[in-house]
């Protein structure tokens, strides 16, 4: 089981770090630019650009936006891999051998996704880094002002809130696509359809849970 979990961490988390870093970096940069372009008044300090970037990245972009990306990348991988096993009777083969297919295929994915907050932590760091680079080198916010804004009114509970959301989303990303893969019917074409359906439902559930958790923890 340990080797299965490590394999899943490698495939689901480590294999997604590239796209997470890439997207986070540029999203962080875009948030900084958009914020800077909308703060025209000379009365508003430039440090607010850093503050807004930090809040946006930590509260929403890193946990929620990254989870939607993961629902597409990891979720469709989970559905298609389990669905293909279903279509090609590999799941029946497991059951005939006396292996509990849900235990063998889904449980390691759920445990592996517990490492997802580490990926989101990286997304937070890289997102803010992207914002700082865009701000400082694009001339939107001086480096010192941006860093001052990053430290402004920092509430540690926001990090806790963000990681609680991440853990919940990780469970959703592992289970909904697995369900769609395990209980799909049909052939190769239906595997594709199941992947799309899984992505849609995972995204919908993430968005709804995001609202509920925000209301519960910050509202």
């Amino acid at each position, binding site marked *: 089981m340990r080797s299965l979990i490590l394999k899943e961490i490698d495939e689901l988390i480590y294999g997604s770090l590239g796209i997470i870093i890439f997207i986070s970096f540029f999203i962080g940069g875009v948030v900084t630019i958009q914020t800077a372009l909308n703060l025209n008044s000379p009365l508003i300090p430039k440090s607010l650009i850093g503050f807004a970037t930090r809040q946006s990245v930590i509260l929403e972009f890193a946990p929620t936006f990254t989870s939607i990306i993961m629902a597409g990348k990891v979720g469709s991988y989970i559905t298609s891999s389990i669905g293909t096993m279903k279509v090609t009777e*590999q799941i029946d083969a497991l059951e005939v*051998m*006396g292996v509990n297919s849900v235990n063998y295929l889904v449980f390691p994915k759920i445990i592996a996704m517990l490492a997802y907050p580490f990926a989101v932590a990286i997304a937070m760091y890289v997102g803010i880094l992207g914002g700082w680079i865009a701000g400082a080198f694009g001339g939107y916010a001086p480096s010192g002002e941006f860093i001052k804004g990053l430290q402004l009114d920092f509430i540690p509970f926001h990090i806790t809130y963000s990681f609680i959301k991440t853990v919940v989303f990780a469970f959703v990303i592992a289970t909904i696509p697995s369900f769609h893969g395990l209980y799909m019917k049909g052939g190769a074409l239906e595997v594709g359809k199941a992947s799309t359906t899984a992505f849609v439902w995972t995204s919908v559930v993430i968005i709804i849970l995001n609202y509920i958790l925000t209301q519960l923890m910050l509202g």
Partner: protein
Amino acid sequence: MIEVENIHKSFGDTHVLKGISTVFEDGKTNLIIGQSGSGKTVFLKCLLGLFEPEEGQICYNGQFYSELSRSERRDLRQEMGMVFQGSALFDSMTVEGNVMFPLGMFTNQSKAEMQDRVDFVLERVNLIDAHKKFPSEISGGMQKRVAIARAIVMNPKYLFCDEPNSGLDPKTAILIDNLIQEITKEYNITTVINTHDMNSVMEIGEKIIFLKDGIKAWEGTNKEIFKTDNEAVTNFVYSSELFKKVRQMYIEERN
């Protein structure tokens, strides 16, 4: 030995198995034949424990499946080997990984012991140089052999095969048939094969069950199938011109 008593299985309003009773003896190759939709696969899945019949009993060497606890059922399943129609090999694992899988899951053998066992069974199915290859890198016939190797690696008491010859050329099909029969005799396994292949029926059918619309319409051996007057069986088995001529020659020879 597997004893089947009056099993019924339905899906919604469709009554697929309508009271099948039979006995599959140890060390014999038992064949289930019948047209598509006659209930062969459902019957095989009932024997495997993948479907639970609504009525009737299946008894494995004195153990009634319906009376077994969950853990006893799991133990029983470890005594079963299954060769699926499409081989159902784990495509992310090598040939060696596929065959080693049940050993890794259910035994406490050391890596060296497992490797010895894998080498032995792969040699037994005449696969020597394919250990490190993936299923997609080997032919359909080789995949079937790997599936047989995986099915027998745990020394099963029961071997089930769903259309083991489908998609294979006639020569490879005969090799697979002979291999299954040899293994059945060698390890005294109760083997049940679901097939459409009339060559298999003639070659290795020590006991043949003909299903028609979910009912056992005929039961006998490959010798008896030549003599039978059962119209449903003769229409099914001798549907091709070749087999009609073979039967005609047999009858003329007998007269």
